């Protein structure tokens, strides 16, 4: 009985850990995923260009994240401080695939007026990963 309880506890704990870390990732893993989906190698320089340019709307990515996102940014309308986006300067960045996808979806809609392609995401992430 005691053994069974332990087995069940272990199972439950395992399930909890798995649930909470189902989207855990590293920036390199996310980049590999986007690159595979894009079907071509990511280009950091193209990512920087994409990040710092406007795409027919009011804001660029750098409007809130700053053109060099190794430092804090500031939300263009809400004014709230945004922690650095470059993973080397903020270890929390690009460690959760669901969170990464959520923000790409929202922010690409604000900046580009549509979702970003896998290739665009790969380029931007590749550039952010070069910032040390």
């Amino acid at each position: 009985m005691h053994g069974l309880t332990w087995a069940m506890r272990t199972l439950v704990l395992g399930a909890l850990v798995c649930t909470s870390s189902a989207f855990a990732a590293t920036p390199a893993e996310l980049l590999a995923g986007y690159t595979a989906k894009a079907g071509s190698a990511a280009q950091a320089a193209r990512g920087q260009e994409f990040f710092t340019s406007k795409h027919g709307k009011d804001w660029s990515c750098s409007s809130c994240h700053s053109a060099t996102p190794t430092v804090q940014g500031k939300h263009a309308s809400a004014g709230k401080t945004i922690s650095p986006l470059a993973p080397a300067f903020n270890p929390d960045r690009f460690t959760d695939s669901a969170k990464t996808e959520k923000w790409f979806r929202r922010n690409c809609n604000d900046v580009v007026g549509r979702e970003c392609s896998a290739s665009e995401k790969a380029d931007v992430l590749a550039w952010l990963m070069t910032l040390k």
Partner: protein
Amino acid sequence: MKNRPLARMGCAQAAIKKIAIYGVTLAAYWLPAVGVHADSGGARVPLLPSYSQECSACHVAYPAGFLPAASWQRVMAGLGKHYGTDASLDEASVREISGWLKANAGTYKRVSEEPPENRITRSAWFLRKHREGEVPAHVWKRASVGSPANCAACHANADKGNFNEHEVRIPK
């Protein structure tokens, strides 16, 4: 109990309770006066973790009691176009946060009025508390303030639901 963000938990609420207990008819005159002078420390509701996490990614997690349920419902139904930005969320999060907001929305008389554009900052109580004599127009324009939505510029503990007016520090 009604969700009242405008009355302080301390003496103001104790006073209201006493009045209620003794059934003094004077209460009808007294309550609005409390609303005017009392602070918005409020009956603080612990924030739902997903509400805090999702909403405070961009702005202070505004207390649920600052808007009536109908206003929150419209905010949550329109997250794709949220005051100029896409704040869309997955369905499960929308459902969870909407339910919590509905349960904790403001029901106190002053908050039950639905403000234009579902904006807290256009509520009658907000405008009165931040009227020209209290917060001059030029203060709002300071870079350190930026927007009336930036509660934390002056209410340092806004993120903890503390809007006590004695702790207000207006930045230069």
